[in-house]
């Protein structure tokens, strides 16, 4: 059995960054199930990637290529067209089972980085009445058809959900000659970035209808029309507001969920808020030491730059991993926040700073993020004019501030008070 220090699962931007940083200090193997490295970026042909990392507006494939070039310069073993089916915990190592065209093989490793990305919520997970005719796609599938295979999923399209991938597909389908009849969002706020509302919808006069959902699909073989309906705050249909929109295609952009089948099999405890593993600041699982997680497998990111950053952190720490006891400080967040990653702090790591990725549940104006230690002392505070759920906030805070406390509290307060 071949032995490695670190095995990275998944060759998207998170896995590529993890393999690069891990290879500095450890014998590293990268495993990808597809033929080409790059993950989902291969089909994200629009620009806007790498603004933070490279100061350029790159397309997804260009961003991926930069990392693929860096991977080639390092001493990293890579196997593609290979699927990791199982990881088992041994006394001091893990056994990784890999399936590919030459059969089943086993590898042994001291630590593992899970960089398996996320998957889309599908039609089964959204409640829509009516038949299930052809012509219903997730936004990612529509993106794959259009950008990789080169054919249009339909002529008259309705998009359910205002996530970024849906917005980007609205523009993409319009450019290719489809008629996008509207984007319907059940929430009262769009869930994608404002820049995408402007450059993907407003530029092309594509209507965005908030507090509205698709309640029914018409058509036997192929979608012929959909029924939209307005919803109240509690997502109940408002009777009498139904409208029929003629369309041959319904595209679902209703959210992404971290892909964590392997983590589940390993018994890794997951955060119901992120749907990814509970981790400390080294991005190591809190209950299965030696397993690290990054990118969209950890929590759904909107910026690839932060995906790469988390890959770098996970890879570096996986390479340095020694099975020693950790003392963890729990991070408690107040109700206004959707989630915070990491969920725990391990004070005994190399880093000087701790990076927090934090997201609010609703739009908040004029607020202050306050972090307190167990003695109720304020150790950090930062003011925001506006915080919006689609825009994840990243805080870089000196680790020394979290010394000698068994938990920290992160809360959101009115921004006006003088602190």
């Amino acid at each position: 059995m071949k032995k490695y220090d670190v095995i990275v699962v998944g060759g998207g931007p998170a896995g590529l960054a993890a393999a690069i940083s891990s290879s500095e200090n450890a014998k590293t193997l990268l495993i990808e199930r597809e033929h080409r490295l790059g993950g989902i970026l291969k089909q994200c042909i629009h620009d806007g990637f790498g603004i933070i990392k490279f100061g350029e507006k790159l397309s997804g494939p260009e961003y991926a290529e930069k990392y693929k070039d860096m991977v080639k310069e390092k001493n990293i073993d890579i196997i593609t067209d290979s699927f990791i089916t199982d990881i088992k915990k041994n006394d001091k190592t893990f056994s990784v089972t890999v399936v590919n065209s030459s059969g089943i093989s086993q590898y042994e490793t001291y630590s593992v980085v899970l960089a398996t990305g996320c998957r889309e919520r599908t039609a089964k997970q959204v409640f829509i009445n009516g038949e299930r005719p052809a012509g219903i796609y997730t936004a990612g599938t529509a993106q794959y058809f259009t950008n990789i295979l080169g054919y249009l999923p339909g002529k008259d399209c309705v998009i359910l959900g205002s996530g970024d991938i849906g917005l980007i597909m609205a523009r993409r389908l319009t450019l290719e000659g489809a008629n996008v009849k509207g984007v319907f969002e059940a929430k009262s706020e769009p869930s994608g970035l404002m820049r995408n509302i402007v450059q993907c919808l407003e530029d092309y006069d594509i209507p965005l209808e908030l507090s509205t959902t698709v309640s029914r699909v018409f058509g036997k073989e192929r979608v012929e029309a959909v029924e939209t309906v307005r919803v109240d705050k509690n997502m109940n249909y408002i009777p009498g507001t139904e409208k029929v929109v003629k369309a041959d295609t319904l595209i679902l952009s209703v959210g992404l969920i971290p892909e964590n089948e392997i983590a589940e099999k390993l018994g890794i405890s997951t955060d119901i808020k992120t749907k990814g593993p509970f981790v400390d600041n080294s991005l190591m699982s809190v209950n299965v030491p030696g397993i690290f997680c990054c990118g969209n497998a950890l929590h759904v990111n909107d910026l690839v730059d932060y995906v790469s950053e988390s890959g770098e952190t996970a890879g570096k720490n996986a390479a340095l991993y020694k099975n020693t006891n950790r003392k963890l400080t729990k991070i408690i967040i107040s109700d206004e926040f959707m989630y915070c990653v990491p969920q725990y702090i391990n004070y005994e790591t190399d880093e000087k700073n701790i990076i927090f990725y934090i997201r609010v549940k609703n739009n908040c104006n004029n607020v202050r993020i306050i972090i307190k230690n167990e003695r109720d002392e304020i150790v950090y505070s930062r003011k925001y004019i506006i915080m919006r759920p689609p825009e994840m906030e990243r805080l870089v805070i000196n680790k020394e501030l979290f010394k000698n406390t068994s938990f920290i509290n992160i809360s959101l307060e009115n921004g006006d008070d003088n602190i």
Partner: protein
Amino acid sequence: MNMYCIECPNGCFMEITDYEGKITVTGNKCKKGYVYALQEITAPMRTVCSTVKTCFRNIPRLPVRTSGSIPKEKIFEVMNEINKITVSENVSIGDIIINNVLNTGVDIIATSNTYES
């Protein structure tokens, strides 16, 4: 007038005032917002990303983009030019697919390779 800056994911909400020809922009977190706002009120510019057909069976489409911004009203004309192309020889990332498209001073460039390096 109000607008959102689209230059980065921050999406700053800006207020633009024109006082006797003197334009002031507020709400932008950086200089790029100011530049964008001035451009947007005079002649809006956009980048275009798309794909071109190829003769390669394993890569039927090659992603491309404009090398810089083009006037917003020219987006569909540029798309038309992009859709006329079929790539039959290997190209690398950054290669020019259409030189100076529609005299905009901007090229259409490949954003991926037709081969696996």
